């Protein structure tokens, strides 16, 4: 109830903000049309160090001005939030084959954002189904407003796009057949392992386990097809993805410890700092156990006891 009122209030303020935005003397955050040219090999953001967790995950402060975000006003006047999501990742973003509806943890997060903007998510979200490699170019070109697709925050990506604060903690593991002799990823040296193009899994295997023979596909779910056909011995991806695969194949299992730390953030166009700050304010609230939104989404999609929610970090200086 409190959330609905907040949403309505936010909407009222946003409409006012939109009117103000049309006056030329007020300087505003650059709109997405002036976004940098898409590039996959951009240098990492200055001052960001992947080895220092805090510097890597720090996002922008949910500033006092979050309510009159020009980007949110634009989305609101358009009537739909364009969200880049996955459709093949059971539990986080997948198309339910029986109902045809796209659902999952990430989808619920996007729907909460839409609910905050429009009062209700229904009819106000346009899901753009993406594979991993399409996420950053689609944000840079303005094709989508937000990406909620198990996206790992790292410094290379901070050079290309902007992230919210962490909303989920995952790690990378390896999926193998149940009777296979592999106990961890190092056992797969010289073996064929499938990864997805444009994923951190692919980068990590390349740098950490160079002797593993990578088979790179466009869509991570193609890995599972190759795995079931026996073309590859294993799949490296986030445990969030692998849990979904294991749930679809009783002959598959996840082995070994998490060999990386994958903090997930929602992705934004680099220029839409105002939108990041708006969503960070929402996340700060949802992650709070007293609010319970995050916990409810977690319980809806993932088994087991509720872990501690990821802690927020808003220490990134505004550009």
């Amino acid at each position, binding site marked *: 109830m409190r959330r609905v009122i907040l949403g309505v209030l936010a909407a009222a303020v946003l409409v006012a903000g939109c009117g103000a935005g049309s006056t030329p003397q007020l300087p505003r955050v650059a709109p997405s049309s002036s976004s940098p040219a898409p590039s996959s090999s951009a240098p990492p953001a200055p001052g960001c160090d992947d080895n220092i967790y805090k510097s890597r995950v720090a996002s922008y402060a949910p500033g006092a001005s979050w309510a009159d975000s020009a980007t949110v006003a634009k989305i609101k006047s358009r009537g*739909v939030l364009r969200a880049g999501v996955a*459709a*093949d*990742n*059971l539990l986080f973003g*997948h*198309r*339910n*084959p*029986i*109902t*045809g509806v*796209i659902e999952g943890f990430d989808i619920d997060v996007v729907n909460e954002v839409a609910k905050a903007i429009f009062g209700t998510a229904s009819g106000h979200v*346009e*899901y*753009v*189904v*993406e*594979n991993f490699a*399409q996420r950053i170019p689609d944000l840079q070109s303005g*094709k989508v407003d937000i990406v909620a697709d198990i996206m790992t925050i790292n410094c290379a990506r901070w050079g290309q796009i902007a992230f919210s604060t962490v909303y989920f903690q995952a790690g990378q593991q390896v999926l193998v057949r149940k009777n296979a002799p592999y106990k961890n990823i190092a056992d797969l040296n010289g073996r064929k392992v499938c990864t997805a193009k444009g994923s951190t899994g692919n980068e990590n295997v390349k740098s950490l386990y160079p002797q593993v023979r990578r088979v790179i596909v466009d*869509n991570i*779910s*193609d890995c*599972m*097809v190759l795995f*079931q056909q026996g073309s590859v011995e294993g799949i490296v991806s986030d445990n969030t993805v692998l849990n979904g*695969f294991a749930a*679809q*194949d009783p002959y598959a299992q996840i082995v070994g410890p998490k060999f990386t730390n994958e903090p997930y953030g929602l992705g934004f166009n680099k220029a839409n700092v105002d939108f990041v700050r708006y969503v960070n304010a929402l996340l700060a609230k949802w992650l709070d156990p007293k609010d319970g939104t995050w916990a409810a989404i977690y319980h809806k999609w993932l088994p087991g006891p509720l872990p501690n929610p990821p802690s927020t970090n808003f220490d990134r200086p505004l550009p």
Partner: protein
Amino acid sequence: MTSTLAAPPQTRQVVVRAARNAFAGTPGRLRLAGIATVLACLVFGLFAFVAATTRANALANARADAAQLVRVQSIRTNLVFADANLTNAFLVGGLEPPSARAAYEQGIATASKTLADAANDSTADAKVLGNVNQVITRYTGLVESARANNRLGYPLGAAYLRQATNLLRSDALPPLAALGQTEQARVNHAYSDSAGATAWLIAGLVIALVVLLVTQVWLSVRTRRTFNPPLVIATALVLVIGIAVAGVLAWSQGKAKDTRGGAYFATLGLATARIDAFDAKSAESLALIARGQGQAYNASFDNLSANVSAVLDDAARRGGADEKAAQERFRDYLAVHARVRAADDGGHWDDAVKLATGQANTVFQNFSDASGTALDRRSAQLRRNLSSARSPLPAFAWIGLIAGVAAAIAAGLGVAPRLREYR
């Protein structure tokens, strides 16, 4: 060694002298003229036979190659038809509609059966067709995996479907398209073989007439008899039958040529249009399945449908009511497709899917029926025309041969009495 092979010098001189005596003087020349006219008439008969038989065989080949071409195109059509139904059913979500499943199975069954027939009829194509058959087996396997996962509610089914569709497009359709090109080249080759046949006939006719006329002129000068009736009969026989065979050859060539520009061209066009149209229908579904990332499929749809429209417009201009009906039905479908795209591009994905799996299917089915009828009629016409262009040729081959033999006998009968006068 050499002595046994070479005739002794005395014997050789005897043979040469005997030969020189045989063809020396007027009786000798008469003997020569007799042999020449008989041979020339036999050559005419033989060449007329070869000409008509060559043409008949070439047209039989053209018919067989065209039939094989139609079969290969039909394999492609049925595969893209099955795939279009499959992808469309997947779009609906949940259990596929039984009608879509039945259509998919029918497409695969027809493709497999046609493939077996085509492989039996042509050893040259059997290898390619065998490979395609393997791909179809893998394709149907992937499709069943997609279904099994779908039934369990696993999104992995979508990955299997994507693999299946990609496999069909990368490994089955291109070799079949290449085979279609090969068959077209074979039909063209058969046509040029067919055109060469007339040269044989004309050569035979000219040789026979020249020898017969020269002999008669020489005889009339030598014997003071203006006409030699048997030789006149031989000449008339060669001339009349030669012209008759030439007439039949020209008629069959004309008919074959008309068929090529008419029924053959129309059959080829309609078959291509249907393949591209089913492929386009698949692209429509795949673009919606891709949900926001379907640009490549939409571009592919635009290319394919432009091809279909161009072919159908041309066919409708040349052809009859069947082609016009197919053209109109395809326009109906394009109108619905435009609404599908407008809905999807306007952010109304659900409406787009409803249209694509409802009304679009209905109007597309109408196009499929209309173009199928047109294709069946055209390919039946093609078979009929090529058969009728060939039908009189075997008989005329024998008539030519018999006429040649008869003319040879007449020529012999005409020269022999003159020769007897010298004994």
